[in-house]
């Protein structure tokens, strides 16, 4: 059964989405990157991806947890194809419009290059037919995919995923495989992009692996998670992770290390903010202020050209002083807002963040902080026997970043599973009751603010030593917002979530000032962040890798008694009968 209304709605939405990404110039700029040589560019992938996803969504039908949706690849394919046809026609009409009327005065991207990109440089009548056909076919494939057997779906998605990953992360892959230079030259085309045969081999390999080791991954995770049997296994997994982290920077080159450092700084800040927002439930929108305290503190204490006061300390001596300064700043911000809740707290902290930036810029404090000139000539981190290490040696600097990320993750982990973490959790759930059962919420809040501030100051201190200069524009509101996005997308209260969130958002898409691994995204990253936030709020408010508590909170109904009994909880005493009576 094909739900025609759904086909129509989603066809129009898909057409609108395609026209939108074309109109903002995304397709054109994504076309700069070749994924599979020749011809398959990231722009094409974007078009195909949108078509396939909408085909799939239409075929999947409206999710109904009570009824198992019938899966049938033929009707799925037809529904997807119809959706794609509508989308293709809508998009073609849009391209035709751009081709006919000149609106580039208002929409600078709506010009000839857009038409060329969308018609695969085939010109208007032919190209539009090709576009419609391609979109229809892809959406049909997406729809049919929904009806395929599970093993086909698993194999296909692994294969596509691996090929796309190899193509997108060409830089990383070729740096890791640097020792096998001829191999790299073999699988990648000279001007970028996978060779077609390499793509086929990678896809086939991924497919084969997915069938060969089906279910083994899950079984392994289960075993690692198992508290008793898994403890040795867990240790080896951690050891392996640490080893990988130590070796990776040596293999990959400067660019990737640079990206890892930037992501690392955001992981640090994300972990700090996660304590404040995720664990203690205090929405702090001015978190960048503590990063600024760390960065400026380090700059003043270590730089010989700090304007007012230049003790020229070593980074290692400056660090504890900066931590204390950040802690004081945490108290300073925390104390006045202690009685505020929710939205009020968010607004006031937002204001605090801006006040810090504006004060740093002000004439009054320019003699100390250098105003718009900032503070320059900040030395790196001195290491006995290796000179000073700064951002010019990303391959070495990254180890400091790792060290502090590890420290912050450790602090978060310990705090979370302790008396303090429980008091934060209680406060987040119900502040009045937390107070009524003997938790001083004033203390708990201040502790969260101070811990978060100190962790941000690590990031600030590293940032100063890495970049060598600090300017106020590194500390605007956008940074606070982006850290918050990292925490929300990754999963509030979840350490893994923050790490993955920062790597994806900052490492791949790009941070507030710097482009990520896929530089084409940096122009659109705010749009993507926004879209991601909306999507997350609607579909997955607990984040990509949620903490246990959060997912309980947001999907409470999923966790029923039966689920717990299935886990083998020992059913003691008369509780069974009690369930019957209540």
């Amino acid at each position: 059964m094909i739900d025609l209304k759904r086909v129509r709605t989603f066809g129009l939405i898909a057409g609108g989405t395609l026209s939108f990404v074309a109109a903002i110039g995304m397709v054109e700029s994504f076309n700069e990157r070749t994924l599979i040589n020749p011809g398959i560019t990231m722009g094409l992938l974007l078009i195909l991806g949108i078509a396939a996803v909408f085909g799939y969504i239409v075929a999947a039908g409206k999710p109904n947890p009570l009824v198992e949706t019938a899966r049938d690849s033929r009707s799925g394919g037809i529904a997807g194809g119809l959706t794609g046809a509508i989308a293709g026609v809508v998009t073609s009409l849009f391209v035709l419009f751009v081709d006919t009327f000149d609106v580039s005065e208002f929409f600078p991207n709506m010009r000839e290059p857009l038409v060329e990109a969308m018609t695969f440089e085939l010109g208007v009548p032919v190209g539009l037919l090709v576009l419609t056909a391609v979109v229809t076919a892809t959406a049909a494939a997406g729809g049919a995919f929904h009806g395929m057997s599970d093993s086909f779906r698993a194999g296909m998605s692994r294969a596509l995923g691996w090929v796309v990953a190899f193509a997108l992360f060409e830089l990383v892959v070729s740096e890791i495989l640097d020792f096998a230079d001829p191999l790299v030259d073999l699988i990648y085309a000279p001007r970028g992009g996978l060779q077609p045969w390499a793509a086929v081999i990678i896809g086939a390999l991924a497919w084969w692996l997915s069938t060969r080791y089906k279910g083994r991954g899950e079984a392994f995770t289960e075993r690692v998670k198992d508290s008793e049997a898994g403890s040795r296994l867990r240790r080896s997994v951690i050891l392996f992770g640490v080893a990988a982290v130590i070796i990776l920077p040596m293999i990959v080159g400067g660019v990737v290390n640079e990206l890892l450092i930037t992501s690392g700084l955001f992981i640090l800040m994300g972990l700090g903010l996660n304590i404040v927002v995720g664990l203690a439930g205090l929405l702090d929108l001015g978190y960048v202020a503590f990063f600024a305290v760390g960065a400026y503190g380090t700059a003043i204490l270590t730089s010989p050209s700090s304007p007012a006061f230049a003790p020229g300390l070593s980074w290692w001596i400056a660090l504890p002083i900066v931590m204390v300064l950040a802690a004081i700043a945490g108290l300073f911000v925390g104390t006045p807002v202690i009685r505020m809740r929710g939205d009020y707290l968010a607004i006031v902290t937002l204001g605090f963040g801006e006040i810090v930036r504006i004060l740093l810029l002000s004439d009054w404090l320019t003699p100390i902080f250098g105003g718009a000139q900032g503070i320059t000539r900040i030395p790196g981190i001195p290491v006995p026997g290796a000179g000073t290490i700064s951002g010019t040696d990303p391959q070495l600097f990254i180890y400091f970043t790792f060290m502090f990320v590890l420290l912050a993750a450790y602090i978060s982990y310990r705090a979370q599973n302790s008396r303090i973490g429980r008091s934060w959790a209680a406060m987040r759930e119900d502040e009045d009751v937390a107070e009524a059962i003997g938790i001083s919420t004033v203390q708990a809040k201040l502790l969260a603010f101070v811990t978060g501030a100190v962790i941000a100051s690590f990031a600030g201190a590293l940032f100063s030593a890495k970049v060598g200069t600090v300017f106020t524009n590194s500390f605007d509101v956008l940074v606070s917002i982006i850290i918050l996005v990292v925490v929300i997308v990754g999963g509030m209260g979840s350490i893994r979530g923050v790490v993955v969130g920062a790597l994806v958002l900052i490492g791949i898409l790009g941070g507030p000032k710097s482009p990520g691994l896929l530089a084409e995204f940096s122009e659109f990253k705010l749009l993507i962040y926004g879209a991601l936030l909306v999507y997350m709020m609607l579909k997955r408010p607990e984040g990509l890798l949620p903490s246990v508590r959060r997912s309980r909170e947001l999907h409470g109904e999923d966790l029923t008694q039966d689920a717990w009994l299935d886990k083998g909880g020992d059913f003691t005493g008369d509780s069974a009968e009690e369930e019957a009576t209540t």
Partner: protein
Amino acid sequence: MALLQINQLTKAFGGVQALGGVDFHIDEGTIVSVIGPNGAGKTSFFNVISGLFPPDSGEILFDGDNLAHHQPNEITRRGIARTFQNVRLFPNLTVLENVMVGQHCRTKEGMWGTILQTKAQREEEKRIEENAKEVLSFFGSRLAGYRYDQPAFVLSYANRRRLEIARAMATEPRLLLLDEPTAGMNPRETVELTELIGELRDERGLTVVVIEHDMKVVEHVSDRVVVLDHGVKIAEGDYESVSTNDDVIEAYLGRPAEAG
């Protein structure tokens, strides 16, 4: 001397005089029931004692110290714990965590101990967990075993009430304030809980003030009964004398003379 001695306690919400000069006392190791019609000010009485709202005037002498205008956490630390009429657990914390949180004010390890994993901190964590389990064992197997790791929101209504009592007990109070502990329970559960309230006094040596609508429970557990109406105490004494008191009967049945 009474463990809790309250003199002339008043509290108004806007125009409503929730408490109009209440005198109250309870001796250590006894159970006093507070009864009264809906809106009599019983819950407000607890809210003021536990510091959720500051009193307008009056004294709250606990063990000789005036606790009026103290922070709720301070009052709990001094030894007064409470439950809420509309059960207020931490729904997403597990059963065990809900009780462990109650130990907060009896433990002290801070950030440094936590980060450094000192011996004292690890021992304290262990002690918190043991104490929490001990408190939960008060309810037999109802909140034990596999229930430890269940989030509180999956519990049945009666178990939520029990868990809330357990959380209050975990704060190691001397005085326990229970706000309608049997509301919503079936007769069997009510009987069981009534027994337990008696045990709180007899075996755990606690002093208990209980707000209760179920007269059978009141009759069974109370050493003394206090009746509130319109924020004032209209009667007190043993169950016999109070239940036959004309003012009390009138308060429950309505007062046609004053209604206009």
